[in-house]
């Protein structure tokens, strides 16, 4: 591979540390907080920041699906966000940042957005 690596990757935890169907929060070097979810269809990383309450809590929401689309539901005021894109299902004008994620040698790594 010769592509220039523009992305910075942060290793956050071992894959097995993640509970299926639940999220955890992780701190990136720049101080941003992300929510890492492990679901049936793999890993997803969104900003941990809930735009409806300003609290850093999305990692603590319930994961499920709305009409088949995987979502996490904010534990504060219960808006749903698409895990794959960060788009808010209840308000099309709102989205949270979605981050690339990969498993590398058994470790979960989160890339810059």
């Amino acid at each position: 591979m010769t592509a220039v690596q523009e992305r910075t990757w942060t290793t956050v935890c071992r894959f097995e540390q993640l509970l299926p169907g639940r999220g955890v929060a992780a701190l990136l070097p720049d101080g941003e907080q992300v929510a890492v979810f492990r679901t049936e269809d793999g890993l997803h990383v969104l900003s941990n920041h809930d735009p409806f309450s300003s609290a850093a809590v999305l990692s603590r929401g319930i994961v499920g699906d709305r009409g088949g689309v995987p979502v996490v539901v904010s534990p504060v005021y219960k808006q749903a966000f698409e895990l794959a894109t960060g788009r808010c299902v209840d308000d099309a004008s709102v989205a949270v940042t979605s981050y690339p994620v990969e498993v590398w040698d058994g470790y979960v790594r989160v890339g810059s957005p």
Partner: protein
Amino acid sequence: MTRTLVVIGNGMVGHHLVRTLTERGGDWRIVVLAEEPRPAYDRVALSSYVDGWDASKLSLAPVDVETRLGDKVVEIDREARKVVTEQGFVTDYDALVLATGSYPFVPPVPGHDLPNCYVYRTIEDLDAIRAHGGVNGVVIGGGLLGLEAANALRLMGVRPQVVELAPRLMPLQIDEGGGALLRREVLRLGLDVHCGVSVASVGEDRVVLSDGSELPADIVVFSAGVRPRDDLARRFGLEVGERGGIVVDAACRTSDESIYAIGECACIDGRVYGLVAPGYAMADVVADQLSGGAKVFPGADTSTKLKLLGVDVASFGDAHAVSPGALEVVHNDPVSGSYKKIVVSDDAGTLLGGVLVGDASSYATLRAYVGRPLPADPGSLIAPAGVANTALPDDAQVCSCHAVTKADIVAAIGTGCADVPSLKVCTKAGTGCGSCVPTLKQLLTSCGVEQSKALCEHFPQSRAELFEIIHATGIRTFSQLVAEHGSGSGCDLCKPVVASILASLNSGHVLEGEQAALQDTNDHFLANLQRNGTYSVVPRIPGGEITPQKLMVIAEVAQDFGLYTKITGGQRIDLFGATVDQLPLIWRRLVDAGFESGHAYGKALRTVKSCVGSTWCRYGVQDSVGLAIELELRYRGLRSPHKLKAGVSGCARECAEARSKDFGVIATEQGWNLYVGGNGGFTPRHADLLVSDVDTETLIRTIDRFVMFYVRTADRLQRTSAWIEAMEGGLDHLRDVIVEDSLGIAAELEKAMAAHVRDYADEWRGVLEDPVKLARFSSFVNAPGVPDPSISFREERGQRVPVQLGIPEVMAR
């Protein structure tokens, strides 16, 4: 590019437009030019101003846009797209909206401009009427507003008489039969009414009527109708209707492309509407048009329901039976003071409209049927106790978070909302604290909309059915349950319900294995999430009894972790501001001192509140504290469809407020009385007596059965009060099942409760003993021990409180 929208008039409709538009976002710079000296207020509720003279109670949600108050627009330069105000303020516009409302019509009778003559439209009008005062008053006009004005005078201590030109009161809304009853009721309240006469002249202390009679009048209020304020439009060349009103098309556009008119000043489809709802509908149209949409005016519902001087009056649809072939069915009961008329199609199959006076309880339901096939034969609909309906009056606020009334909900149901999620989208009701969702369901049912009992999109079953499935099949994982009895991967509705059912069926620790992923954040961290992402900790204090030693431990923990400390409304102590990583450290100390989880976070037993009882109190007849502790220890940890609260009072003085609890016990000389189905909170309800004068053993057996029956059969988030109210046969049926064992399930219910009591273990101790569960209590998986940096505190009254996180990017809506 930012364009400028200028709105002339800051009444209810102009305000609604600005609010809707700002909520939608978009790139309009909005300038509001308002003649009135104060921010927009709720004119519909103007009459309530008399009760307390507090104008702030009429305020509408403030909107943050450029607003010039107390400065009226006097010129529109359509060519240059500019408006000019009286004080010389000039602004350009790309789009202009006229929302200038109407003015009260004052008939030009001699004396109409004397200093004792007033109109009734603004807060300033009411202040002026109040300042003038007097002994006798005359209200000219017996319509909706006139009667409101008369009542307002009455409340100010002025004796009002009402003069109405038409042969009956409220001629626009109601028919002769209804008018006759309304008049009778109004007279009974001591108000004089003169119908079929007009005013000939006004003097300084009297009003002379067209029949020559005179009424004493220190003060005269004109309420003879309103006229659209279309003067600006006339002066600057916009088309106006034959009988006034600025002519607009279905998109609310005037004859000038870039100028709209909405609300009471607009003439749409040849009509000028004097009600606020059509105005709001026009505002919604314009908001949509300005955002690039193509919405058009959907036509208006002119149904009204009001309480005038304590008399319910409602009219809806074709109230005057003007549709070809329309038939009227009338039920008139002068004795009980109720007049009901419905108008049906010639085949009696479709409801067209109606009038209700005296008893308008069936309004909501009937209105929802307008234009639809009748649910029953017409006569039975208006027979006494005809259409079942909730006791809520129509103007009752169903959703206090978003100020949505029952009428709003019913209107939304009328336009096709058939379930709670669509009502949420349509009306915003239920999207705040959620307390009103059960009422939304009731209203759907009472409007005849069949309610799906499906728990959510993943399970077609109700909670009670799922309970039976899990109980009978022995399935103990969510994944198996959803694979065999549901679909998809679950959601925030079904997962906690299944978690709760599993917990009620004694399936081990709530954070064990797959169960952990099902829990709401509160149950996941065994603490209550607060607005800044921290948690609160509530140790159980059974019956509210606590030793000084234990109090000291709580104090030390609070001090060491810097927790805000507050006595709760449930006789215990709440410690706020703990971060996720602090929770186990705090609980280690509490558990070591003998505390257990108080389940303040769970849909579970909360507290059994006690009064001091016979041990100390000179009136107490039983040991209420002892019983409260026994009950709290018995049912602690029991997961239920909603939270469960209880109370025990030592005598009938009821200091523990037991009758506001899900189950409440009151001591008698002979034993205990048991009350069930009480509720504080959103819809308070006093508990009903289930059994009386029973001994402690019988009491506990009865509560065991009652609580287990509830746990098994109630809906998700249905408190015992709503559960009993929804139960077929109500309290009698409940008593049959619980006391008489009519279903033969009492033994099983008791056995289930015995199993719960046997298997109870403190959840927090369970976490502290298991390193896997403990490991989840960290703010960051890659930085254990580092607290969430977005959380900070300040000090208030000697304690730490959260620094608010700033205005969320998305304003709470």
